[in-house]
């Protein structure tokens, strides 16, 4: 009678909340080059510090912007000269989609919609 081979555990499945590619994994830390050129390993520590401070400031500003936008009317300027207005709801964790309500489109008003962030060039709203 054959015994089934035992396993330590099952393979881990996708995380429902993120697209993965953990930035803390050893491979990411070793291989991922940052987008700004001064962040090369050879750059001097002071430059790196200034850059990090700038990055944190920009990131914080962006996140605060998203928070302020909640439930406000926002105009989205998108590719192919598309301009739409909607009430901003929320963003997903990777900033891939924006959840909006009352999206005014040339073919009518969509009560609830998801806007794909990679299609958005810029957005404006009144604070």
């Amino acid at each position, binding site marked *: 009678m054959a015994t089934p*081979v035992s*396993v330590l555990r099952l393979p881990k499945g996708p995380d429902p909340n993120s697209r*993965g590619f953990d930035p803390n*994994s050893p491979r990411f830390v070793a*291989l991922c080059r940052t987008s700004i050129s001064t962040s090369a390993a050879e750059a001097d520590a002071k430059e790196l510090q200034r850059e990090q401070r700038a990055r944190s400031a920009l990131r914080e500003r962006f996140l605060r912007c998203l928070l302020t936008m909640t439930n406000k009317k926002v105009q989205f300027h998108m590719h192919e000269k598309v301009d739409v207005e909607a009430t901003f709801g929320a963003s997903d964790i990777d900033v891939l989609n924006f959840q909006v309500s009352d999206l005014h489109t040339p073919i009518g008003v969509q009560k609830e919609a998801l806007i794909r962030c990679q299609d958005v060039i810029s957005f404006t709203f009144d604070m």
Partner: protein
Amino acid sequence: MIYLTLPLSVFCPLSSWRSMAMRQTPLTCSGHTRPVVDLAFSGITPFGYFLISACKDGKPMLRQGDTGDWIGTFLGHKGAVWGATLNTDATKAATAAADFTAKVWDAVSGDEVLSLAHKHIVKSVNFTQDSNCLLTAGNDKLLRIYDLSQPEAPSQEIAGHSAAIKKALWCNNDKQILSAADDKTIRLWDRSSMQEVKMLTFETSVSSMEYMADGELLVITYGKTIAFYNALSLELIKTVEAPAPINSASLHPEKDFFVAGGEDFKLYKFDYSTKEELESYKGHFGPVHCVRFSPDGELYASGSEDGTLRLWQTAVGKTYGLWKCVLPGKSLFVSVYTCLVRTFHFQPV
């Protein structure tokens, strides 16, 4: 102290020990919501090896090759992904989709690096060994070569096939290209002259094609046949018949086994030299679309219509990845010791 030596066979008859055959436990990787149509392994990197799966749900996934653990999902395609590949060191990925684009991705961060517009559904993508060029092919019947260092430059196009191309691969040290199309031909092209060098014609459409650089071998499947060709001369080496129509086959790196899967949902393992069917495994709930050996040959992965990927051991029972082997010797010792203590009232010294 009285030491009694008794033959081992008193405590564990060798016959029952030998008959402790191990049954294959496939590891199921879930996550896709539609059929898995293509998969590819990277080479062996300092961080192990990796696996990418193409799925009709439009979301190709990257997994750790030896465990099947999900690493990330490449988001961006707007249609079914028909082909996926990784470069040797798994730093780049490329995908071919029904949204008329082929995309190149950073396989470490998951970011989309390049989107290459085509005129029809793209079915196949393949990197050169130096990862500098990408070969694409699909329903527009053209082979396209992109220089990834100059992505805005137009691609080089090779025409010739009279129907949609299913698969296109670099071969012969990236000096030549092999393509399989729905016009029931496989053609060999010279890269520099962009001319057709040889052609193989079949009675029926080829369902899959795998190229092995080491040994210059080509593994082709059509109908219930798995055929092995010399990749340079396109001379037939041998054919093997399977019990059911086969969609994909893969030869072990050491060329002693090959595995195949197809319409009857099963995975078959054959001996390459004797052509003998060694094993068959049930597990998938739908036709098997693709099967590939890992670069170290220790496991093979299969993708199915049922939306799952399964990992199978080459040597069933061996400790590898998530599979662990309970050594018969270890449990034998425990049972012998227990027997001795009970029977002879042994007290440990």
